[in-house]
């Protein structure tokens, strides 16, 4: 009995934390686990590095898509546009809460777009940095 009260109390205490924690936490935790697995020295993701990566012009990818901003536009709170004219929903969490809530979707688009822009897979560090920055926006 006492144990179950304790468990309930702990659950109640934990609940506000779970709500305060963003719906993007699971994705970030997954990316962090990948980063640790790839590099034992991994400490944390950097929003500053993510922003720089997002705006950089990269090489090694396909000529029509040298940068993230080619399609996502240089305003992450605005709509982007694919080369075929299709609208892309904003990337910033403040205007599009759905971003970085579905790990499968995150991996699908990082896989495709990193290959298009850089000609290789992104490292977990790069993915986590970009995600961290966009989640802060």
């Amino acid at each position, binding site marked *: 009995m006492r144990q179950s009260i304790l468990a309930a109390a702990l659950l109640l205490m934990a609940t506000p934390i779970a709500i305060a924690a963003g719906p993007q936490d699971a994705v970030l935790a997954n990316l962090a686990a990948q980063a640790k697995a790839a590099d034992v020295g991994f400490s944390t993701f950097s929003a500053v590095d993510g922003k720089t990566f997002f705006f950089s012009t990269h090489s090694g990818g396909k000529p029509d898509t040298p940068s993230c901003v080619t399609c996502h536009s240089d305003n992450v709170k605005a709509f982007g546009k694919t080369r*075929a004219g*299709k609208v892309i929903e904003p990337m910033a969490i403040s205007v599009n809460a759905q971003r970085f809530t579905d790990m499968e979707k995150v991996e699908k688009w990082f896989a495709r777009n990193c290959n298009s822009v850089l000609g290789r897979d992104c490292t977990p560090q790069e993915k986590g940095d970009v995600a961290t920055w966009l989640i802060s926006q």
Partner: protein
Amino acid sequence: MMLDVPSHGPVWDLPLRLFHWTLLLAVLTAAVSGFLMPLNWLNLHLIAGTAIIVLLLFRLVWGFTGSSFSRFSSFMFSPSTVLAHVRALRKGETPHHPGHNPVGSVMIFALLGVLTLLTITGVIVLGGAEKQGVLKALVSYATGSATREVHEILAFGLLALVLGHIAGVIFESRRSGVNLARSMVTGDKPSTEPLTIAPPRIGAALAGLALTTLVIGSTALALWQLPAVNVPHEALDAAYEKQCGDCHIPFHPSLRGRSTWTTIMTTLDDHFGEDASLPDNEVAHLSDYLTLNAAERWDTRAANVFRGTEPLRITDTDFWKHRHADVDPAVFKTKKVGAKSNCEACHGDARAGLFSAQAINIPQE
């Protein structure tokens, strides 16, 4: 010489005169909408064409039941009579005919004949090339498309005939001193000899019109209700619409041939300059869907013109470039369009693979 004081009906009876001027209006509308207006005004052309069909059917009945000079029998002349009339005119003689003269009658039959052929070819083009109208279930795209050439040649022929008709009216009006255009308004035409004009046979006319309406109308209605064959009508596959529609409009499978879809689905890692990779099971499902519903299965215009394998990009094909040559290039850069490949920005029925003329609407900024 005494002018006949009309104690009878007019030379050109009222229904004939109404026919003449309504036909002029309908032909003018058909010509302007067909030659000059953008494709998406096709409905106006169809309304004009339908009016011409109705008028021609009326004229057919009236040619047997109208008053004397409306009847075909009053202006059916043998070739030798026509030639004799031409010879007389050359000699400066003034042969008089109260109704159509022999040369004029040739023009009337030519006009009615070409108009009849224009409406018939028009309905064939509409059925085969546009998959609309009463022949959509019976005519192939190939037939409709080839008939379009005939329809256009006939249209230029009609223009020439109309000019000849007007020239003939001016010539004959000057020669005879009778304003023939005015006669077609008032119905009266001064005559050098007493005329007996048989009145219209109203009962027979009404019976003829009722029968024509019944036969032609019920046939047209029955044909109209037959569905067009080999025209897609199912909604797009949900997975296709989702997966492929993320980056571009989901192009209808009929817009590419089977082998082209196979090429596209086996090279998704370099998909028109981007990586569009998908899991193997998705690729398998989409490939099955696309090859099953590829251009080879359909007889729409889009399926026919985009069936070929080269070039891979639809907007690089000669047909696409030719058809969009008149579109201001700036349109493709507007906010609502964005890219040439965004078909449905202007073609309201692009997703269904139909691309009908009436569904074209270029968004204005």
